[in-house]
């Protein structure tokens, strides 16, 4: 028994290290390699020795030269060379009106070249999926047996995984670098599932809202309210509230898995300003999802364009990795969104579901509907012993005994599993009926700790 626990611990450690390395490689390749072939390379510390309109110059050894063609698309790089001197006229593939737009010094070149190699081969793409696989393996080996709480978590993550795979099962998209284009795409999915994910079989509700609001007839918006997408989200919300966040959101699933990575004392449950920061998601919903697509003349889905890390994780990275044409078109916004994704990934390891808590506009809508949903939480006050175990295990920071259907509750069921007196239940049924069911004698829980006797010692 003890040997089994030790081997699991070793597997966990190895997988954590492998995962950590893959994560670093992944972020490094995505951000750095993309930066190398873009103007915003300056932001990463490159020293530009020459600028525009120079067609001949002397450079230090190992410099990387960025050449921009006047005939090519704005800001695109048509060629780059490692050289200590360069004359544009000598390069047949550069048109006569080309310009050198920048030169980077050697240490950046070394780092950039390594990243470029990974990024432009399929390795970054591979690393991304190996990373997810490693996470899943890690999850499956994460302590066998265990308490009701652990079993509940495992059950929930299995449902999340199954749902994510089911709703993103168009495998051809991942292989060919395209997306599913069938009629199922007109249906809104309940979670934040980007419709540009190569495997996505349905539409993202937040994207659908913005798509309706960005319709224009001349300069005037055609729709002032996205009835269809809001109606779909309200329908899901009215049935089960934020249960969608806890069980059916692919990005919630990704954050959940990331939070499984051991980070020791770095992990935090709450911090100063945590509660105030939770209102940010409502501001994001109003400003980026409704106001900006509706009132700004340049009709863009602004939330998707400037913030959404889910689109970058499930849509951007797989598509950019496989589709050469899209990769060549990537630029400043790619860097911005990759950086946001990197921040969310790191934050998810430290904080439980930071995107859901503070930014997600879909979570904001569902949280408003949490009190008005058919599926609800009930607390049997007669059975409750006020031990506060439910509040201590809740990673969303909810005390269910005070506010059973709080906006922040994602109905994960951890509190129910942790309750020693079975005073909590989640159900569609009426409170009285459930109270009757919940009012049982407490169960006795057995732990799997080894029993030491004199003979075994």
């Amino acid at each position, binding site marked *: 028994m003890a040997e089994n626990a030790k081997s699991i611990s070793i597997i966990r450690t190895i997988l954590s290290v492998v995962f950590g390395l893959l994560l670093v490689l992944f972020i490094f390749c995505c951000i750095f390699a993309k930066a190398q072939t873009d103007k915003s390379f300056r932001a990463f510390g490159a020293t530009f020795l020459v600028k525009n309109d120079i067609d001949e110059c002397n450079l230090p050894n190992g410099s990387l030269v960025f050449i921009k063609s006047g005939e090519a698309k704005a800001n695109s790089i048509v060629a780059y060379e490692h050289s200590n001197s360069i004359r544009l006229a000598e390069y047949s593939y550069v048109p006569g009106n080309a310009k050198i737009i920048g030169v980077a010094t050697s240490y950046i070149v070394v780092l950039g070249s390594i990243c470029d190699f990974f990024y432009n081969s399929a390795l970054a793409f591979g690393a991304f999926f190996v990373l997810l696989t490693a996470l899943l393996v890690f999850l499956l080996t994460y302590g066998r047996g265990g308490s009701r709480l652990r079993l509940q978590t495992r059950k929930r993550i299995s449902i999340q995984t199954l749902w994510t795979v089911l709703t993103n099962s168009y495998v051809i998209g991942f292989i060919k670098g*395209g997306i599913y284009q069938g009629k199922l795409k007109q249906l809104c999915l309940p979670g934040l599932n980007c419709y540009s994910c190569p495997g996505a079989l349905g539409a993202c509700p937040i994207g659908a809202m913005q798509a309706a609001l960005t319709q224009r007839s001349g300069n005037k918006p055609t729709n002032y309210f996205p009835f*269809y997408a809001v109606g779909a989200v309200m*329908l899901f919300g009215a049935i089960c509230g934020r249960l969608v966040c806890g069980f059916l959101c692919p990005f919630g699933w990704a954050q959940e898995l990331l939070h499984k990575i051991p980070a020791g004392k770095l992990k935090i449950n709450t911090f100063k300003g945590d509660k105030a920061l939770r209102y940010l998601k409502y501001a994001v919903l109003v400003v980026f999802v409704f106001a900006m697509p509706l009132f700004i003349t340049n009709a*863009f889905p602004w939330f998707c364009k400037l913030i959404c890390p889910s*689109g970058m994780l499930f849509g951007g990275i797989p598509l950019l990795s496989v589709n050469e044409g899209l990769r060549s078109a990537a*630029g400043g916004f790619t860097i911005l969104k990759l950086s946001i994704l990197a921040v969310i990934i790191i934050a998810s390891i430290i904080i439980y579901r930071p995107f859901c808590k503070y930014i997600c506009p879909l979570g904001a809508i569902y949280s408003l509907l949490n009190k008005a949903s058919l599926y609800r939480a009930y607390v049997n006050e007669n059975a409750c012993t006020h031990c506060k175990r439910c509040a201590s295990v809740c990673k969303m920071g909810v005390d269910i005994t005070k506010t059973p259907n709080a906006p922040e509750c994602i109905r994960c069921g951890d509190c129910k599993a942790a309750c020693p007196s079975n005073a909590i239940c989640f159900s569609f049924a009426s409170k009285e009926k459930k109270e009757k069911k919940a009012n049982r004698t407490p169960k006795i829980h057995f732990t799997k700790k080894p029993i030491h006797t004199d003979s075994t010692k």
Partner: protein
Amino acid sequence: MKRRRILLPIIVLLVSVAFIAIGIFRNEVAVVLKKAVMICLECIGIG
């Protein structure tokens, strides 16, 4: 309180169904489909 607890979800459900019906009537489904079957460049950090 109990009545409110039952009424509120039913009202929200009815409103949501009405919204979906209005959306279908206003041809928003076609707008969503049109957007969803094309690669959304804004979503993947290009547009």
